[in-house]
Protein backbone atom coordinates (compact mmCIF):
# COMPACT_ATOMS: atom_id res chain seq x y z
CA UNK A 1 0.00 0.00 0.00
CA UNK A 2 1.38 3.40 -0.91
CA UNK A 3 2.05 5.99 1.75
CA UNK A 4 -0.85 8.45 2.15
CA UNK A 5 -0.39 12.10 1.19
CA UNK A 6 -0.93 14.66 3.94
CA UNK A 7 -2.30 18.14 3.37
CA UNK A 8 -2.92 21.24 5.47
CA UNK A 9 -6.60 22.19 5.63
CA UNK A 10 -6.77 24.60 8.58
CA UNK A 11 -4.65 27.29 10.22
CA UNK A 12 -4.92 29.08 13.57
CA UNK A 13 -2.67 31.43 15.51
CA UNK A 14 -2.51 34.10 18.13
CA UNK A 15 0.77 36.02 18.00
CA UNK A 16 2.53 39.26 18.84
CA UNK A 17 1.40 40.53 15.43
CA UNK A 18 -2.29 39.66 15.64
CA UNK A 19 -5.04 37.65 17.29
CA UNK A 20 -5.50 35.38 14.27
CA UNK A 21 -3.77 34.12 11.14
CA UNK A 22 -5.08 36.81 8.78
CA UNK A 23 -3.98 39.76 10.92
CA UNK A 24 -0.64 38.10 11.68
CA UNK A 25 0.03 37.44 8.00
CA UNK A 26 -0.95 41.00 6.99
CA UNK A 27 1.41 42.41 9.62
CA UNK A 28 4.22 40.11 8.48
CA UNK A 29 3.85 41.15 4.85
CA UNK A 30 3.86 44.80 5.95
CA UNK A 31 7.09 44.23 7.90
CA UNK A 32 5.69 45.24 11.29
CA UNK A 33 7.54 44.46 14.51
CA UNK A 34 5.66 42.90 17.41
CA UNK A 35 8.41 43.70 19.90
CA UNK A 36 7.86 46.33 22.57
CA UNK A 37 9.22 47.49 25.92
CA UNK A 38 8.19 45.55 29.02
CA UNK A 39 6.55 48.20 31.19
CA UNK A 40 5.62 45.84 34.03
CA UNK A 41 7.14 46.75 37.40
CA UNK A 42 9.04 43.45 37.59
CA UNK A 43 10.91 44.20 34.39
CA UNK A 44 12.80 47.18 35.81
CA UNK A 45 15.40 44.98 37.55
CA UNK A 46 16.09 42.78 34.51
CA UNK A 47 18.94 43.13 32.02
CA UNK A 48 16.38 42.44 29.26
CA UNK A 49 13.30 44.69 29.24
CA UNK A 50 11.79 43.95 25.83
CA UNK A 51 9.59 41.15 24.49
CA UNK A 52 7.08 40.31 21.79
CA UNK A 53 3.82 40.17 23.74
CA UNK A 54 0.51 38.89 22.39
CA UNK A 55 -1.43 41.41 20.31
CA UNK A 56 -4.74 40.07 21.66
CA UNK A 57 -4.95 38.82 25.24
CA UNK A 58 -6.74 35.46 25.58
CA UNK A 59 -8.97 36.98 28.28
CA UNK A 60 -10.79 38.88 25.52
CA UNK A 61 -11.52 35.64 23.65
CA UNK A 62 -12.11 32.91 26.24
CA UNK A 63 -14.66 32.64 29.02
CA UNK A 64 -13.52 34.02 32.41
CA UNK A 65 -14.33 30.88 34.41
CA UNK A 66 -12.56 28.64 31.88
CA UNK A 67 -9.46 30.86 32.04
CA UNK A 68 -9.20 30.26 35.81
CA UNK A 69 -8.14 26.68 35.08
CA UNK A 70 -5.84 27.40 32.14
CA UNK A 71 -2.19 28.31 32.10
CA UNK A 72 -1.64 31.08 29.56
CA UNK A 73 0.13 28.58 27.27
CA UNK A 74 -2.96 26.34 27.43
CA UNK A 75 -5.36 29.22 26.84
CA UNK A 76 -3.63 30.40 23.68
CA UNK A 77 -3.22 26.86 22.37
CA UNK A 78 -7.00 26.54 22.69
CA UNK A 79 -7.55 29.85 20.90
CA UNK A 80 -5.32 28.83 17.99
CA UNK A 81 -6.77 25.30 17.82
CA UNK A 82 -10.36 26.58 17.78
CA UNK A 83 -9.46 28.89 14.88
CA UNK A 84 -7.73 26.11 12.94
CA UNK A 85 -10.63 23.74 13.56
CA UNK A 86 -13.17 26.27 12.33
CA UNK A 87 -10.94 27.18 9.38
CA UNK A 88 -10.76 23.52 8.32
CA UNK A 89 -14.54 23.25 8.39
CA UNK A 90 -14.41 20.04 10.39
CA UNK A 91 -16.90 20.99 13.09
CA UNK A 92 -19.95 19.47 11.38
CA UNK A 93 -18.13 17.10 9.07
CA UNK A 94 -19.06 13.93 10.92
CA UNK A 95 -15.39 13.09 11.54
CA UNK A 96 -15.07 9.98 13.72
CA UNK A 97 -13.46 11.12 17.02
CA UNK A 98 -11.37 7.93 16.98
CA UNK A 99 -9.77 9.16 13.73
CA UNK A 100 -8.81 12.55 15.25
CA UNK A 101 -5.49 13.03 17.09
CA UNK A 102 -3.73 16.01 18.66
CA UNK A 103 -0.01 16.85 18.65
CA UNK A 104 0.59 20.14 20.44
CA UNK A 105 3.74 20.90 22.40
CA UNK A 106 5.36 23.60 24.44
CA UNK A 107 9.03 24.32 24.98
CA UNK A 108 8.75 25.27 28.64
CA UNK A 109 5.15 24.54 29.66
CA UNK A 110 3.26 26.03 32.59
CA UNK A 111 6.21 27.77 34.25
CA UNK A 112 4.28 30.95 35.06
CA UNK A 113 1.62 28.90 36.87
CA UNK A 114 4.32 27.08 38.85
CA UNK A 115 5.90 30.36 39.89
CA UNK A 116 2.61 32.11 40.71
CA UNK A 117 1.42 29.18 42.84
CA UNK A 118 4.79 29.05 44.60
CA UNK A 119 4.26 32.71 45.53
CA UNK A 120 0.86 31.74 47.00
CA UNK A 121 2.39 28.78 48.86
CA UNK A 122 5.03 31.02 50.43
CA UNK A 123 2.62 33.85 51.29
CA UNK A 124 -0.53 31.96 52.34
CA UNK A 125 0.30 28.30 52.87
CA UNK A 126 -0.55 25.05 51.09
CA UNK A 127 -4.33 25.21 51.51
CA UNK A 128 -4.46 28.31 49.29
CA UNK A 129 -2.63 26.61 46.40
CA UNK A 130 -5.12 26.22 43.54
CA UNK A 131 -6.47 22.71 42.90
CA UNK A 132 -5.95 23.52 39.21
CA UNK A 133 -2.17 23.91 39.68
CA UNK A 134 -1.10 20.49 38.39
CA UNK A 135 -3.27 20.40 35.23
CA UNK A 136 -2.16 23.97 34.55
CA UNK A 137 1.57 23.33 34.77
CA UNK A 138 1.82 19.83 33.30
CA UNK A 139 3.61 19.94 29.95
CA UNK A 140 0.90 17.88 28.24
CA UNK A 141 -1.75 20.37 29.39
CA UNK A 142 -2.09 22.34 26.13
CA UNK A 143 -2.46 19.16 24.04
CA UNK A 144 -4.89 17.66 26.53
CA UNK A 145 -7.10 20.75 26.55
CA UNK A 146 -7.16 20.88 22.75
CA UNK A 147 -8.07 17.19 22.65
CA UNK A 148 -10.84 17.76 25.20
CA UNK A 149 -12.20 20.76 23.33
CA UNK A 150 -12.29 18.99 19.96
CA UNK A 151 -13.18 15.54 21.25
CA UNK A 152 -10.05 13.86 19.88
CA UNK A 153 -9.89 10.15 20.75
CA UNK A 154 -7.06 8.85 18.56
CA UNK A 155 -4.37 10.02 20.96
CA UNK A 156 -3.15 13.30 22.39
CA UNK A 157 0.60 13.91 22.14
CA UNK A 158 2.84 16.59 23.61
CA UNK A 159 6.24 16.87 22.03
CA UNK A 160 8.89 18.78 24.00
CA UNK A 161 12.06 19.68 22.09
CA UNK A 162 12.66 23.27 23.19
CA UNK A 163 12.61 25.64 20.23
CA UNK A 164 12.05 22.80 17.77
CA UNK A 165 8.82 21.73 19.51
CA UNK A 166 6.25 23.29 17.15
CA UNK A 167 7.92 21.84 14.07
CA UNK A 168 8.44 18.43 15.68
CA UNK A 169 4.78 18.34 16.73
CA UNK A 170 3.83 18.86 13.07
CA UNK A 171 6.32 16.17 11.99
CA UNK A 172 4.72 13.78 14.49
CA UNK A 173 1.31 14.61 13.02
CA UNK A 174 2.64 13.62 9.60
CA UNK A 175 3.85 10.30 10.99
CA UNK A 176 0.52 9.63 12.71
CA UNK A 177 -1.45 10.07 9.47
CA UNK A 178 1.08 8.15 7.38
CA UNK A 179 0.97 5.24 9.82
CA UNK A 180 -2.81 5.12 9.55
CA UNK A 181 -3.53 5.97 13.21
CA UNK A 182 -5.69 8.99 12.35
CA UNK A 183 -7.18 10.86 9.40
CA UNK A 184 -6.84 14.30 10.98
CA UNK A 185 -4.22 15.65 13.39
CA UNK A 186 -4.45 19.05 15.03
CA UNK A 187 -0.78 19.95 15.43
CA UNK A 188 1.30 22.88 16.61
CA UNK A 189 3.04 24.64 19.45
CA UNK A 190 2.38 27.13 22.21
CA UNK A 191 4.49 29.24 24.54
CA UNK A 192 3.80 31.90 27.16
CA UNK A 193 6.70 32.51 29.52
CA UNK A 194 7.15 36.27 29.56
CA UNK A 195 7.98 36.30 33.25
CA UNK A 196 11.08 37.49 35.13
CA UNK A 197 12.48 34.03 35.88
CA UNK A 198 12.65 32.58 32.34
CA UNK A 199 13.89 35.96 31.08
CA UNK A 200 16.59 36.05 33.76
CA UNK A 201 17.57 32.49 32.91
CA UNK A 202 17.93 33.12 29.19
CA UNK A 203 19.66 36.43 29.93
CA UNK A 204 22.16 34.67 32.20
CA UNK A 205 23.04 32.46 29.24
CA UNK A 206 23.73 35.69 27.32
CA UNK A 207 21.28 34.42 24.72
CA UNK A 208 18.98 37.46 24.61
CA UNK A 209 19.18 40.85 22.97
CA UNK A 210 19.67 43.72 25.40
CA UNK A 211 18.77 46.39 22.86
CA UNK A 212 16.27 47.73 25.39
CA UNK A 213 16.10 51.24 23.96
CA UNK A 214 15.11 50.09 20.47
CA UNK A 215 12.64 47.21 20.93
CA UNK A 216 11.52 47.08 17.30
CA UNK A 217 15.12 46.83 16.12
CA UNK A 218 16.25 44.22 18.64
CA UNK A 219 15.44 41.10 16.63
CA UNK A 220 17.76 41.32 13.61
CA UNK A 221 18.68 37.91 12.18
CA UNK A 222 21.86 37.87 10.04
CA UNK A 223 22.56 41.55 10.73
CA UNK A 224 26.04 42.40 11.99
CA UNK A 225 24.49 44.21 14.96
CA UNK A 226 22.50 41.17 16.20
CA UNK A 227 23.03 40.47 19.90
CA UNK A 228 20.61 37.69 20.80
CA UNK A 229 16.98 36.63 20.47
CA UNK A 230 13.89 38.49 21.65
CA UNK A 231 11.44 36.40 23.67
CA UNK A 232 7.95 36.16 22.17
CA UNK A 233 4.71 34.49 23.21
CA UNK A 234 1.98 32.92 21.12
CA UNK A 235 0.54 29.77 19.61
CA UNK A 236 0.27 28.32 16.13
CA UNK A 237 -1.81 25.32 15.12
CA UNK A 238 -2.36 23.59 11.78
CA UNK A 239 -4.90 20.96 10.79
CA UNK A 240 -3.17 18.09 8.99
CA UNK A 241 -5.40 15.75 7.04
CA UNK A 242 -5.02 12.64 4.95
CA UNK A 243 -5.28 14.02 1.39
CA UNK A 244 -7.95 11.55 0.29
CA UNK A 245 -10.03 12.37 3.37
CA UNK A 246 -9.79 16.09 2.60
CA UNK A 247 -10.67 15.53 -1.06
CA UNK A 248 -13.66 13.37 -0.17
CA UNK A 249 -15.22 16.15 1.88
CA UNK A 250 -14.25 18.86 -0.61
CA UNK A 251 -12.00 20.64 1.87
CA UNK A 252 -9.99 23.72 0.92
CA UNK A 253 -6.30 22.74 0.88
CA UNK A 254 -3.53 25.26 1.68
CA UNK A 255 -0.52 23.13 0.86
CA UNK A 256 0.87 19.63 1.12
CA UNK A 257 3.07 18.63 4.05
CA UNK A 258 5.42 16.65 1.85
CA UNK A 259 8.18 15.63 4.21
CA UNK A 260 9.95 15.96 7.53
CA UNK A 261 13.46 15.40 8.80
CA UNK A 262 14.37 14.98 12.47
CA UNK A 263 17.88 14.55 13.83
CA UNK A 264 19.75 15.10 17.07
CA UNK A 265 23.28 16.46 17.47
CA UNK A 266 24.59 14.38 20.41
CA UNK A 267 27.12 17.18 20.75
CA UNK A 268 26.28 19.74 23.47
CA UNK A 269 23.25 20.50 25.64
CA UNK A 270 22.87 24.05 24.31
CA UNK A 271 25.51 24.77 21.65
CA UNK A 272 24.65 23.71 18.12
CA UNK A 273 27.16 21.45 16.40
CA UNK A 274 30.05 23.60 15.16
CA UNK A 275 29.57 22.59 11.51
CA UNK A 276 25.79 22.31 11.72
CA UNK A 277 26.09 18.60 11.08
CA UNK A 278 22.72 17.72 12.64
CA UNK A 279 20.95 20.57 10.87
CA UNK A 280 22.36 19.50 7.51
CA UNK A 281 21.15 15.94 8.03
CA UNK A 282 17.68 17.11 9.12
CA UNK A 283 17.25 19.30 6.03
CA UNK A 284 18.56 16.61 3.70
CA UNK A 285 16.23 14.02 5.24
CA UNK A 286 13.24 16.35 4.88
CA UNK A 287 14.00 17.00 1.21
CA UNK A 288 14.47 13.28 0.56
CA UNK A 289 11.32 12.39 2.50
CA UNK A 290 9.35 14.95 0.46
CA UNK A 291 10.74 13.47 -2.74
CA UNK A 292 11.23 16.90 -4.29
CA UNK A 293 14.21 18.20 -6.25
CA UNK A 294 16.47 20.52 -4.25
CA UNK A 295 15.96 23.11 -6.97
CA UNK A 296 12.22 23.14 -6.23
CA UNK A 297 12.91 24.44 -2.71
CA UNK A 298 12.60 28.10 -3.70
CA UNK A 299 12.00 29.50 -0.22
CA UNK A 300 13.20 28.85 3.32
CA UNK A 301 11.63 30.22 6.48
CA UNK A 302 14.80 29.94 8.54
CA UNK A 303 15.12 29.28 12.26
CA UNK A 304 17.45 32.36 12.45
CA UNK A 305 16.82 33.67 15.96
CA UNK A 306 19.18 36.68 15.85
CA UNK A 307 21.96 35.03 17.87
CA UNK A 308 25.58 35.60 16.78
CA UNK A 309 26.48 31.92 16.24
CA UNK A 310 23.26 30.12 15.27
CA UNK A 311 22.22 32.39 12.41
CA UNK A 312 25.36 31.77 10.37
CA UNK A 313 25.52 28.03 11.10
CA UNK A 314 22.10 27.67 9.51
CA UNK A 315 23.31 29.49 6.38
CA UNK A 316 26.15 27.00 6.05
CA UNK A 317 23.76 24.09 6.56
CA UNK A 318 21.37 25.36 3.88
CA UNK A 319 24.24 25.76 1.42
CA UNK A 320 25.29 22.18 1.95
CA UNK A 321 21.85 20.56 2.12
CA UNK A 322 19.85 22.58 -0.43
CA UNK A 323 22.13 24.89 -2.41
CA UNK A 324 22.37 28.59 -3.04
CA UNK A 325 19.09 29.20 -4.89
CA UNK A 326 16.36 29.60 -2.20
CA UNK A 327 15.10 32.99 -1.08
CA UNK A 328 15.30 33.12 2.71
CA UNK A 329 13.43 34.97 5.36
CA UNK A 330 13.49 35.13 9.15
CA UNK A 331 10.06 36.11 10.40
CA UNK A 332 11.43 36.14 13.97
CA UNK A 333 12.72 39.60 13.04
CA UNK A 334 9.06 40.64 13.48
CA UNK A 335 7.53 38.11 15.90
CA UNK A 336 10.47 37.56 18.23
CA UNK A 337 11.25 33.97 19.19
CA UNK A 338 8.17 32.03 20.26
CA UNK A 339 10.30 29.09 21.49
CA UNK A 340 8.03 26.02 21.41
CA UNK A 341 5.53 27.79 19.15
CA UNK A 342 8.14 29.10 16.70
CA UNK A 343 8.20 26.10 14.37
CA UNK A 344 4.40 26.07 14.20
CA UNK A 345 3.99 29.78 13.51
CA UNK A 346 6.78 29.70 10.96
CA UNK A 347 5.22 26.67 9.27
CA UNK A 348 2.06 28.74 8.90
CA UNK A 349 4.10 31.57 7.36
CA UNK A 350 5.76 29.06 5.01
CA UNK A 351 2.38 27.61 3.97
CA UNK A 352 0.93 31.07 3.28
CA UNK A 353 4.06 32.08 1.35
CA UNK A 354 3.44 29.10 -0.95
CA UNK A 355 -0.28 29.86 -1.27
CA UNK A 356 0.14 33.58 -1.96
CA UNK A 357 3.42 33.43 -3.89
CA UNK A 358 5.04 35.95 -1.57
CA UNK A 359 7.94 35.79 0.87
CA UNK A 360 7.51 37.89 4.01
CA UNK A 361 10.38 40.25 4.81
CA UNK A 362 13.25 40.02 7.25
CA UNK A 363 13.23 43.41 8.92
CA UNK A 364 16.25 45.10 10.53
CA UNK A 365 18.70 43.49 8.10
CA UNK A 366 20.48 46.81 7.63
CA UNK A 367 24.07 45.62 7.63
CA UNK A 368 24.24 41.96 6.56
CA UNK A 369 26.87 39.71 8.09
CA UNK A 370 29.68 39.00 5.61
CA UNK A 371 28.90 35.29 5.92
CA UNK A 372 25.35 35.80 4.63
CA UNK A 373 25.87 34.17 1.25
CA UNK A 374 22.22 33.37 0.49
CA UNK A 375 19.60 35.80 -0.73
CA UNK A 376 17.20 37.18 1.87
CA UNK A 377 13.93 39.07 1.41
CA UNK A 378 15.32 42.01 3.37
CA UNK A 379 13.04 44.86 4.50
CA UNK A 380 10.23 44.19 2.01
CA UNK A 381 8.07 41.23 1.03
CA UNK A 382 9.01 39.71 -2.32
CA UNK A 383 6.79 38.00 -4.88
CA UNK A 384 7.98 34.54 -5.79
CA UNK A 385 6.42 31.41 -7.29
CA UNK A 386 7.13 28.68 -4.73
CA UNK A 387 6.65 25.03 -5.73
CA UNK A 388 8.22 23.86 -2.46
CA UNK A 389 9.49 25.51 0.71
CA UNK A 390 11.40 24.55 3.81
CA UNK A 391 10.91 25.48 7.46
CA UNK A 392 13.71 24.85 9.95
CA UNK A 393 13.55 24.67 13.73
CA UNK A 394 16.40 23.89 16.12
CA UNK A 395 16.28 23.56 19.88
CA UNK A 396 18.42 23.43 23.01
CA UNK A 397 19.26 19.80 23.54
CA UNK A 398 20.51 19.41 19.98
CA UNK A 399 17.09 18.97 18.30
CA UNK A 400 16.94 19.62 14.55
CA UNK A 401 13.67 19.55 12.63
CA UNK A 402 13.04 20.47 9.00
CA UNK A 403 9.67 20.43 7.25
CA UNK A 404 8.99 20.61 3.52
CA UNK A 405 5.68 21.99 2.26
CA UNK A 406 4.68 21.92 -1.40
CA UNK A 407 2.10 23.69 -3.53
CA UNK A 408 -1.03 21.73 -4.41
Amino acid at each position, binding site marked *: MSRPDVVVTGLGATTPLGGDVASTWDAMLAGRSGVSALTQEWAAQLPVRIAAQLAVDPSTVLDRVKL*RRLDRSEAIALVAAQQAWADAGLADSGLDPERLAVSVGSGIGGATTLLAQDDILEASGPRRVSP*HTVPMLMPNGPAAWVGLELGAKAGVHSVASACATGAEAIALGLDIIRSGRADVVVAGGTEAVIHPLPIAGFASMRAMSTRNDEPEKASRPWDKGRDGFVLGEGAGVVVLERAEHAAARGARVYARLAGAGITSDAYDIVQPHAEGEGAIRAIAKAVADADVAKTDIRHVNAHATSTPVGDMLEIGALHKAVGDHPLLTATKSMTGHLLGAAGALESIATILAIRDGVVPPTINLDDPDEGLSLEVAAHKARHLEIPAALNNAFGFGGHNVALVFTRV
Partner: protein
Amino acid sequence: MTRDEITAGLAEILEEVAGVNPDDVAEGKSFTDDLDVDSLSMVEVVVAAEEKFGVKIPDNEVQNLKTVGDAVSYIAAQS
Protein backbone atom coordinates in the same frame (compact mmCIF):
# COMPACT_ATOMS: atom_id res chain seq x y z
CA MET B 1 -25.84 35.73 59.77
CA THR B 2 -29.16 34.42 58.41
CA ARG B 3 -29.45 31.37 56.18
CA ASP B 4 -30.40 33.64 53.27
CA GLU B 5 -27.28 35.74 53.80
CA ILE B 6 -25.09 32.63 53.81
CA THR B 7 -26.81 31.35 50.64
CA ALA B 8 -26.20 34.71 48.96
CA GLY B 9 -22.53 34.59 50.01
CA LEU B 10 -22.16 31.08 48.59
CA ALA B 11 -23.84 32.23 45.37
CA GLU B 12 -21.20 34.93 44.98
CA ILE B 13 -18.41 32.36 45.44
CA LEU B 14 -20.03 29.90 43.03
CA GLU B 15 -20.34 32.60 40.38
CA GLU B 16 -16.69 33.62 40.77
CA VAL B 17 -15.23 30.13 40.89
CA ALA B 18 -17.49 28.09 38.62
CA GLY B 19 -19.57 30.60 36.66
CA VAL B 20 -22.83 29.50 38.29
CA ASN B 21 -25.73 31.90 37.76
CA PRO B 22 -26.60 33.28 41.24
CA ASP B 23 -30.30 32.92 40.45
CA ASP B 24 -29.83 29.15 40.25
CA VAL B 25 -28.40 28.89 43.77
CA ALA B 26 -30.94 27.68 46.33
CA GLU B 27 -30.77 25.47 49.42
CA GLY B 28 -32.24 22.43 47.67
CA LYS B 29 -29.69 22.42 44.85
CA SER B 30 -26.95 19.79 44.64
CA PHE B 31 -23.50 21.19 43.93
CA THR B 32 -22.57 18.46 41.48
CA ASP B 33 -25.89 17.36 39.96
CA ASP B 34 -27.72 20.70 39.72
CA LEU B 35 -25.01 23.36 39.65
CA ASP B 36 -22.40 21.35 37.70
CA VAL B 37 -19.57 22.11 40.15
CA ASP B 38 -16.77 19.60 39.60
CA SER B 39 -14.50 18.24 42.33
CA LEU B 40 -11.64 20.68 41.77
CA SER B 41 -13.97 23.67 41.72
CA MET B 42 -15.60 22.36 44.92
CA VAL B 43 -12.19 22.57 46.60
CA GLU B 44 -11.98 26.21 45.54
CA VAL B 45 -15.52 26.88 46.82
CA VAL B 46 -14.68 25.39 50.22
CA VAL B 47 -11.48 27.41 50.64
CA ALA B 48 -13.24 30.62 49.55
CA ALA B 49 -16.14 29.88 51.94
CA GLU B 50 -13.75 29.36 54.86
CA GLU B 51 -12.26 32.77 54.15
CA LYS B 52 -15.56 34.54 53.59
CA PHE B 53 -17.40 33.15 56.61
CA GLY B 54 -14.45 32.73 58.98
CA VAL B 55 -15.06 28.98 59.50
CA LYS B 56 -13.10 25.76 59.10
CA ILE B 57 -14.49 23.09 56.80
CA PRO B 58 -12.34 19.93 57.17
CA ASP B 59 -11.92 17.72 54.10
CA ASN B 60 -13.83 14.86 55.74
CA GLU B 61 -16.85 17.18 56.13
CA VAL B 62 -16.86 18.28 52.51
CA GLN B 63 -18.19 14.92 51.30
CA ASN B 64 -21.29 15.46 53.48
CA LEU B 65 -22.04 18.82 51.89
CA LYS B 66 -24.12 17.57 48.95
CA THR B 67 -26.45 20.54 48.64
CA VAL B 68 -26.25 24.26 49.14
CA GLY B 69 -28.53 23.76 52.16
CA ASP B 70 -26.04 21.28 53.70
CA ALA B 71 -23.29 23.90 53.38
CA VAL B 72 -25.49 26.66 54.80
CA SER B 73 -26.33 24.50 57.84
CA TYR B 74 -22.68 23.62 58.45
CA ILE B 75 -21.53 27.24 58.15
CA ALA B 76 -24.41 28.51 60.31
CA ALA B 77 -23.52 26.02 63.06
CA GLN B 78 -19.83 27.03 63.01
CA SER B 79 -20.15 30.80 62.87
